[in-house]
């Protein structure tokens, strides 16, 4: 187990490195010039040239990459081209709000999706109504969904504040938006896994042993049915943390997603790379965590000691 962990962590670092390399190079494929967004449309070519020189943009891509990697190793993610702040403090400042929203959103989608999936899975035939609701939530643009919630519960009914920012019950609507958008995935996957599990021989065995319905469900059915949902939840959490821009802008929630998108538009490469590194770390950690948790709850996936 220790060897496995060590290998996974080592490979995780390699993965992050690969992501950094890949993204860094991709950024140079995509057309864009930070000088333009820094100096604006009235800047003369001379000013643009100066801005580029001040940012060392004239250097070859590989030299810039090397410089960047050397910085990362020392924990220095650079300075924002536009905001002139250190990237780690910019991102660090946003992480708590993002984590709060990510966790809340994940909780809503897991609870709603899981409950509906279990309910549907226990039915003889799947519920057509649930299918319609699921597909509806999947298809409605998430921006519109958030805005409708804001319009209804915030503006018309005045149940929740609409002034933006964090704190108090301001989290309810954005978390609900995230949750409703994610719910169908969980409902479907859990329902599917439920049916698979209910039909499995070990369920038959458990029932034959004379266990109560509740015991069978809790110890045999749910445990197995949760496995794919768990994989999704782990990935989702990483994704939620690395940014859910549409919810952030509808609800004026200061998160990483806005940061990343604005950095993308400003061609603010240090900030963009910083958010990419955060996302990569989260994905790597989340996948490792999923694999470990799955091994814990589902003995079939455990490593064979050879």
């Amino acid at each position, binding site marked *: 187990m220790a060897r496995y962990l060590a290998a996974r962590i080592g490979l995780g670092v390699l993965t992050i490195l690969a992501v950094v390399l890949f993204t860094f190079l991709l950024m140079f494929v995509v057309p864009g010039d930070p000088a333009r967004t820094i100096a604006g449309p009235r*800047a003369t070519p001379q000013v643009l040239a100066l801005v580029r020189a001040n940012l060392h943009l004239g250097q070859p891509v590989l030299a810039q990459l090397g410089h960047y990697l050397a910085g990362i190793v020392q924990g220095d993610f650079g300075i924002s081209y536009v905001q002139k702040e250190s990237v780690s403090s910019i991102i660090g*400042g946003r992480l708590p709000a993002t984590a709060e929203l990510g966790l809340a959103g994940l909780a809503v989608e897991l609870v709603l999706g899981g409950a509906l999936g279990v309910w549907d899975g226990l039915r003889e035939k799947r519920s057509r109504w649930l299918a319609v609701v699921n597909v509806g939530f999947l298809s409605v643009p998430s921006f519109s969904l958030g805005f409708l919630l804001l319009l209804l519960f915030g503006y018309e009914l005045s149940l929740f504040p609409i002034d933006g920012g964090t704190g108090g019950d301001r989290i309810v609507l954005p978390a609900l938006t995230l949750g409703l958008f994610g719910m169908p995935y969980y409902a479907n996957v859990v329902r599917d896994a439920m049916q698979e599990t209910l039909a499995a021989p070990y369920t038959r065995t458990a029932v034959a042993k004379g266990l109560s319905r509740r015991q069978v469900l809790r110890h045999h059915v749910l445990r197995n049915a949760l496995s794919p949902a768990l994989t999704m939840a782990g990935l989702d959490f990483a994704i939620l943390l690395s940014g859910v821009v549409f919810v952030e802008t509808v609800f004026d929630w200061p998160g990483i997603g806005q940061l990343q998108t604005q950095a993308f538009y400003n061609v603010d490469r240090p900030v963009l790379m910083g958010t990419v590194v955060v996302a990569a770390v989260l994905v790597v950690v989340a996948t490792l965590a999923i694999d470990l948790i799955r091994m814990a709850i589902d003995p079939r996936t455990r490593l064979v000691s050879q």
Partner: protein
Amino acid sequence: MREFLRALERTGSLTERKCLLIIETEGEGDAMGDQGSDDPASLSRRDLIRGAGLGLGALYIAGCGGSSQKLPGTTSTKASSTAGVGVPGPPASGGQQGGSIVVGWEQEGNSFDPAIGYDLISWDSLCNCTTAAPMIFGAEGEGPFPNAAASVDISDGGTLYTMHLRPGVRFQNGRTVTAHDYVYSWGRVLDPKIASWAASYLYPIEGAEAVFNGKAKTVKGLTVADPMTLKIRLRSPDITFINILAQPYLTAVAKEAVTRYGAKFAKHVVSTGPFTLTSYDQQGQTAVFKRNPHYFWKGLPYLDSVMYRWGTSAQTELLQLQHGNVDSIGPGIGPSLVPQVSAQPSLAKYVVKVQLPAVRWIGLNLKREPFTDIRVRQALNWAINREQITRIGYGESVPWGLPFPENLPSFHRVATQYGYDPQKAKALLAAAGAHNLSFQLTTTSDDPNPSIAQILQQQFKAVGVNMSIQTVSDSAYNTSTEKKNFTAAPVHWYQVQPTALDILDSNYTTNASSNYWNYSNSKVDKLAAQALGAPSTAQSNVYLAEAEKLIAADAPGLFLGSLNFIDGRSPALQNFHYNVFYGTYYDRLWKSA
């Protein structure tokens, strides 16, 4: 996979943001019909200033005549007990001290540093909160009038500007401003390490260019005659220089604060404006500006504080405005939401329409087929039904078939507009021997560009021209225009001074920085130079009118419309006025209970 979905969806609303072209904030206010009903006094007040503005303008023109005419100082002190209030805008009678307002924005600014800030929100913070330039424009672009300067004398055939500082002007830290502070602050704009976009606007000053090029340490043309007098020597007469003195980047900044905060000065600006930037919370996406007790217009500002909040979608902002969570929508009501105002009469009381000195056109690359042929360019100008385009925008723009903006003060046009005449278009195309013409339009997905592109596509089809549309990201658009690697692209321009030299010198002279069209007409270049060196605004405008006629005939663009600004603000804001160059004056604003 959801990440991508989410990211992409966001992309849509994000590209809606309208910040890339400079200073979309400006615009002042003709009410959309409702401001008058809210506030019956506003009309007469506006007439009053307009009158005052013309009078002052006349004096100024005389001043430029080379006779060292002294500009008027606080002419309005007699009109109002509140010193100076009447100079740039209407007198504020019955102002109430106290209160605070919230202004909503979509994006964080590029920088609140006067030398660097250019986008919507940054410009607003500079013009209306933190800085006070030597001169200031009236609400509708009249003037400029003295502001932090008490007066400016022009002599030596328009090459020597003697700026007398207004006594009692202090920095927000309490220190009195002297002429040395202007020498420092303007030198800072020219510092190549700062790389200010505004540096070239100081080039009229003798020796300024050398500083920016690193060939000199100090600006030769700036001399401190005494602590309250700055002498500015120009390379040659320049009719725009007095307008440049009214730009926020020429404000005085406190050297001690720049030294202390370095690159973070943008978040700790210390200048001479009505409000002091007291907090910049990047994490919480807010900035707070508190009343500056040292502000030189005594009794102003009325408000205790102005708060900026950014990172909100335009649709949410509109809800927040109606709900009272924000008092003003900084970027205004964007093109995609404007029709909502038409559809929901209840919104009307929040809306003010302002005619801007701004235009929109389709820039053409004159070195690419089919636009090498002038007849094709003219034909397409005649083929455009501009009414159809502006109709979908609910007053966001008006049909306008000329290169310079529609409303320019004391500008007498000699050019005639392109109208809608498909027969003429077909005849011109036939004369050019053009059959089955096709070309590509490169556009961003910023509203209203995609709609305009699709309408034009149909209109051109009617005259047998096939236009394909290529949507690209904002940065790809910038790159392709800058490298002149495009055939046709939508452009807009917001002027920051009342003379058409602003758009002409940036877009249509041979070496203009935004001349992406490969346009070159030596007659236009000559007229531009003459207009710049003209002894009076009237004379300058004669040259400019001639230049416009030439440009219109050459048709380096397909001229579409003159732009308006649709502002959203709470009806509780009293004495609300929107300046066509600066945005909302916060200093004379108050909020009724």
